[in-house]
């Protein structure tokens, strides 16, 4: 039963991936004007008509659109995402170079976020309607409403310009260059997540088994950490997976502010330069990673909760 569900889910994923590849490919057809001219214009040269026609033919742009799509897709399946117009290097290699820094940034900011939001949410839930609850609720509200690029700029102003503790440009790749971008990303996320932790814990605290445990005289901290927390973890893991996915895509702004050498800043540069193969590669990669994370989260869900395997709702 379990394998069958997983298989069905995999098939669904493949279909959605196909749809995404289609969308990704056609994004570039939104562009006003001719990619070849744009490419030359971006490179700063004004070629004659003959060269343009030759380049078009060489790039396969004279073929029918669907043939182009099929060719591109076949290439992608073989790991060939095309050659970047701007860098004249394979897209896969360019993205691969930037994947690790972005991953590092995402994971580290999630770690920071958990460090803040789990205790904060716990305090809110266990001391519901107390002063701490209200103060934290106010803080989370502000956190959600702060534009993350402004947070990044302010952090930079304070910690790079006024107190030069951190480098202004983070392309060094050392730990120091990771701190401020991660804090910026963690800032808004913690606010959102604290709310979720609060809701999840409150929900579990109202369950019968908690009353039962209290009646048996089990210490409150034991109930909280050994009984309530593991149960509340389940919905949080789902959310964590989703946040990791959206983080990978959402790092662009922060990467640009801190000149962090990740996929996001590469993508922004690619979009500005109309580097279509690179844009397509980036969007496709991020979507696929996002989908794989979702799939992994779903699978872990049914591993963590045996009931899910029987009901098969999640898978």
């Amino acid at each position, binding site marked *: 039963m379990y394998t069958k569900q997983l298989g069905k889910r995999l098939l669904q994923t493949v*279909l*959605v991936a196909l*749809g*995404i590849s289609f*969308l990704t490919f056609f*994004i*570039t057809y*939104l*562009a*006003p004007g001719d990619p070849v001219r744009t490419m030359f214009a971006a490179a700063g040269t004004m070629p004659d008509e003959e060269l343009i026609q030759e380049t078009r033919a060489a790039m396969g742009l004279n073929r029918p659109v669907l043939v182009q799509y099929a060719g591109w897709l076949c290439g992608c399946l073989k790991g060939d995402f095309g050659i970047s117009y701007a860098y004249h290097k394979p897209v896969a290699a360019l993205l691969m170079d930037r994947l690790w820094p972005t991953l590092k940034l995402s994971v580290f900011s999630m770690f920071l976020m958990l460090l803040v939001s789990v205790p904060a949410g716990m305090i809110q839930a266990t001391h519901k309607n107390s002063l701490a609850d209200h103060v934290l609720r106010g803080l989370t*509200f*502000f956190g*959600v*409403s*702060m*534009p*993350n*690029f*402004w947070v990044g*700029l*302010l952090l*930079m*102003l304070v910690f790079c*310009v006024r107190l030069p503790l951190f480098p202004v440009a983070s392309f060094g790749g050392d730990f120091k260059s990771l701190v401020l971008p991660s804090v910026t990303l963690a800032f808004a996320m913690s606010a959102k997540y604290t709310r979720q932790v609060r809701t999840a814990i409150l929900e579990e605290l109202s369950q019968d088994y908690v009353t039962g445990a209290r009646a048996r005289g089990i210490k409150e901290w034991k109930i909280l950490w050994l009984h309530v927390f593991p149960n509340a973890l389940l919905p949080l893991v789902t959310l964590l997976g989703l946040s990791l*996915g*959206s983080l*990978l*895509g*959402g790092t*662009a*702004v922060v990467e*640009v*502010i801190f000149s962090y050498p990740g996929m996001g800043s590469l*993508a*922004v540069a690619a*979009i*500005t330069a*109309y580097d279509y193969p690179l*844009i397509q590669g*980036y*969007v496709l990669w*991020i*979507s696929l990673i*996002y*989908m794989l994370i*979702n799939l992994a989260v779903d699978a872990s869900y049914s591993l963590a909760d045996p009931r899910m395997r029987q009901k098969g709702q999640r898978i």
Partner: protein
Amino acid sequence: MKMVVKKNKYVCLLSMLAFLIILAAVFAPLLTGGVDPAASVLKDALKAPSAEHIFGTDKLGRDVFVRVIYGARISLSAAFLVVFLIFVLGTVLGVVAGYFGGWTDAVLMRTADMMVSFPGMVFAMAIAGILGPSIRNAVIAVALVSWTKYARLARSLVLKIRNRDYVAAAVVTGSKSSYILTTYMIPNVIPTMIVTAATDIGGMMLELAGLSFLGFGAKAPNPEWGLMLNEGRPFMQSAPWMMIGPGAAIFVVVVVFNLLGDALRDVLDVREE
């Protein structure tokens, strides 16, 4: 009852704040004493905040306060437009899909699935960037990646009442589909959709400002807040005030609209009980 009045007072206060912001945007010329937000006075460039220029001036000597006030026009109208577009598009498509089912529903829901398994900001960036940077294209991009949420919601609301007896009665007595849709389905769906739209205004504003900040939205010399922050970035050392005004403006406006949306949701939930 007391609760409702108390909540409504809160909503009134927030609505007034939101209204004030809108008024400030509409009457920007009056509020700023008729100073042109695009008029550069190069001898006044990069002046620190003073009584004359309370938010300071930018690299072209333009008054940052004036530009922030005029920026409200762009940010507010763009965010309202996005929310309106996805509200209408999502509601109509969701209601139709939920009511008729079949292939319309299948196509719509698969598209929505695809959008969900897609980090929206990445797609919006790509669309806005490739269409060419302008506030209109940023609106199109954000709307394109956000409408599915509304369609899903409207569809699920319709499915909830689709099999109620009064709908069955209407079908049996020979009511036209268009009549059932407009009399039963849409009115049932609208309140929840409006609340969702209200809570989304702040978020949309942030996304649009983010796109402009990256250079995929408003173009210079437009006084858009995200773009102003981007312009202020190189002058962080010498003129940090250039990014204080616009950032604070985004923050305050988003806070007010988020609070208003949340408060509206609470009030409407109370009534439903």
